[in-house]
């Protein structure tokens, strides 16, 4: 007997066999059990296929739930913008404006403004009120981003382990902060005779330490005076700093003016408008100085490294001296025991009587030469920066194509990502201030926050650039090289526009807000997509 082949049986079942053959097959299966069985098996297979395919085993993802939510996201970003505007207004009226008034009435202003803003934030006490109100929101945002990231990267027990570890770590942190003695107030004084057996953290307009601190001193203040004894380091963000006592560790100051006249066992690092190392002062280590003016009359046992506008040297330097800056005067009392180098536009003035181990090596940086070199350098850096951003973009595209597409899609809705980016920036800034200034979560957390934010800030340009490229050259086919070409064009436009004075700054601000918002939304979307099972579940 001639049997029908499987193809014919399938077509018969599907009603696709021509009528003649169909009739033959119908007749045949009445007699042939084998072909009849095959037909049944095939039919069974069809039913199985059909039910497996149509089984409702997965719920619809939330982002597909409603078309309206996607086509009308305007309320979301209206809200984001509103919050941003309110926050900015609040920040200005409650934060900056009264501060300006206070400062100008106190006689500050002009060029000192910046150093005041940066170095003496603790001076204005309204900070804490403002921060209390917003910190919860900021922390929630940070936690959401972190959880989204963890859910995307890790799954199941690993994610739980990471979250538990993070919780333990967070619990350990306040204890650590609590281990230090924290003092806040209008005028803080540690009187002579008082001994603090602990690290000391102080915030307030005026801080004076006449007693002993057996640990580090961390100060945020307008005026810091240390006449006592500190066994650890002194770290200060202050308007004015005066160290007249003994510090067994390092002194690191970010300050407008600093006067050092005591004994410092280790090193000094100073960012200051002016620094004064009085003749009776003694620094056991070396000094790194970034300053407008420096009068260095005291002793230091090791090297001096300085970027200083005007330098007067009259003291003893045990090691090497390297200074770059405007002018250098070596007075008659100076004693430079190591080799000395000065880089500047003017010849250093060496008074008779100054002791030098060897003549000062002069590296003349002529104005013309400098400008030409700096132009070349700016150009070089611009090209390098462009190349770097492009490489990062291509890597992102190749390694995380799903994330790349999701983020690019988010960037396309313009308003929402800009709003989210602005919110993230504001909350991020507050979180940083919170972490660093008030030491609630610790400097470590603040630094970690910045380190997490920085890469997002960096890749922001990639997505805005690619979006721009797509706008100009049209949507790319799904070929990597086409996407890269658009990315290259868009990035070039951003980079060139960014070089324009003033306007460039605005361009970068827009790119940062827009791009970071898109990246955060992209993270969010990916975390949701990944949190759903990729393999079908049993029905």
């Amino acid at each position, binding site marked *: 007997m001639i049997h029908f082949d499987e*193809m014919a049986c399938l077509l018969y079942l599907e009603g696709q066999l021509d009528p003649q053959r169909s009739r033959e097959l119908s007749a045949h299966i009445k007699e042939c059990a084998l072909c009849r069985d095959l037909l049944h098996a095939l039919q069974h297979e069809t039913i199985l296929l059909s039910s497996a395919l149509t089984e409702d085993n997965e719920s619809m993802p939330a982002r597909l739930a409603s078309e309206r939510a996607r086509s009308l996201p305007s309320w979301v970003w209206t809200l984001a913008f509103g919050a941003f505007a309110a926050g900015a207004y609040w920040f200005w009226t409650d934060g900056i404006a009264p501060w300006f008034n206070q400062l100008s009435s106190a006689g500050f202003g002009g060029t000192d403004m910046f150093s005041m803003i940066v170095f003496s934030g603790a001076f204005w006490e309204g900070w804490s009120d403002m921060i209390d109100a917003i910190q919860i929101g900021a922390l929630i945002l940070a936690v959401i981003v972190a959880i989204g990231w963890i859910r995307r990267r890790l799954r199941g027990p690993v994610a739980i382990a990471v979250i538990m570890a993070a919780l333990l770590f967070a619990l350990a942190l306040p204890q650590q902060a609590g281990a230090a003695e924290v003092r806040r107030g209008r005028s803080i004084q540690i009187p002579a005779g008082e001994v603090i057996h602990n690290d000391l953290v102080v915030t307030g307009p005026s801080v004076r330490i006449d007693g002993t601190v057996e640990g580090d001193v961390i100060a945020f203040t307008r005026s810091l005076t240390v006449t006592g004894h500190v066994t650890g380091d002194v770290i200060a963000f202050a308007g004015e700093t005066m160290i007249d006592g003994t510090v067994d560790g390092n002194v690191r100051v970010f300050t407008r003016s600093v006067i050092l006249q005591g004994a410092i066992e280790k090193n000094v690092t100073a960012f200051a408008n002016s620094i004064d190392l009085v003749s009776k002062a003694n620094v056991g280590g070396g000094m790194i100085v970034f300053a407008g003016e420096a009068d260095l009359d005291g002793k230091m046992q090791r090297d001096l490294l300085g970027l200083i506008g005007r330098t007067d040297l009259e003291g003893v330097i045990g090691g090497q001296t390297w200074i770059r800056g405007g002018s250098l005067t070596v007075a008659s009392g100076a004693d430079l025991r190591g080799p000395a180098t000065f880089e500047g536009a003017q010849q250093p003035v060496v008074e008779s009587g100054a002791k030098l181990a060897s003549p000062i090596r002069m590296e003349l940086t002529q104005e013309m030469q400098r400008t030409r070199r700096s132009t070349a350098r700016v150009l070089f850096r611009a090209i390098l920066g462009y190349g770097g951003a492009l490489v990062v973009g291509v890597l992102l595209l190749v390694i995380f194509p799903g994330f790349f597409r999701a983020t690019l899609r988010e960037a396309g809705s313009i308003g929402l990502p800009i709003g989210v980016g602005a919110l993230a920036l504001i909350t991020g800034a507050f979180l940083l201030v919170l972490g660093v200034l008030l030491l609630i979560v610790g400097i470590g957390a603040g630094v970690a926050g910045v380190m997490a934010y920085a890469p997002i800030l960096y890749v922001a340009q990639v997505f805005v650039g690619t979006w721009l490229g797509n706008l100009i050259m049209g949507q790319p086919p799904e070929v990597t090289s086409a996407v890269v070409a658009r990315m290259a064009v868009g990035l070039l436009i951003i980079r060139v526009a960014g070089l324009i004075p003033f306007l460039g700054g605005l361009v970068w601000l827009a790119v940062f807000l827009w791009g970071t918002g898109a990246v955060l939304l992209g993270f969010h979307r990916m975390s949701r997509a990944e949190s759903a099972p990729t393999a079908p579940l049993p029905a």
Partner: protein
Amino acid sequence: MDARRNPEGMSPAEQAVAQERIALAKAGSAEAWGELYGQYAPAIFRFCRRAMPTREDAEDATMDIFIKVRQKLSQYDATRPFSAWLYTVAANHCWDLLRRRKLRQDLETGEVENMPLEHPDPGQLERLIERRTGQEMRRALDKLPARSRMALVLRYYAEMSYDDIAATLGVRRTFVGVVLLRARHQLREILEGQGGARLAAGGAT
């Protein structure tokens, strides 16, 4: 007909409501469009989920398909069933994506003609597929080459005609049956592998 794949295949009254919705959406009613979306989006998402390799792809495709559908709504011929038209748009979109993505890994073309036309043992086939769960079948389907999977989804999920399948996949109509049968053979091979693994696992315990 299955209501999950074809939401309009219910009662004549409901069908009339659906037709009115389509007409309203065509005329530009956002509300009617929203209802239409709510009615068909789950089926289209599931279609994309079966056709595309990842859930992310399926979500993206679903969104893009509905954007296309909204733009093309005026071209819809009301004498055809709406879901059939919808599936045609969806199938074309998904197949376009898959084809472009696989540009370099050529799409197992050329082998279509070399189908073994042997007569398989019906008993063996029955044993292979009996007591298979939907999940096992879907897992096997996921391992199929793109075209084979697409063909099965078009036929047994979207219930498209051989003509429409031929148009979507760009093959001659006479080859649709061959593509489908070949896909079934590939599926059986995968299931055999799975069955072997299952038996081995069963033997070990």
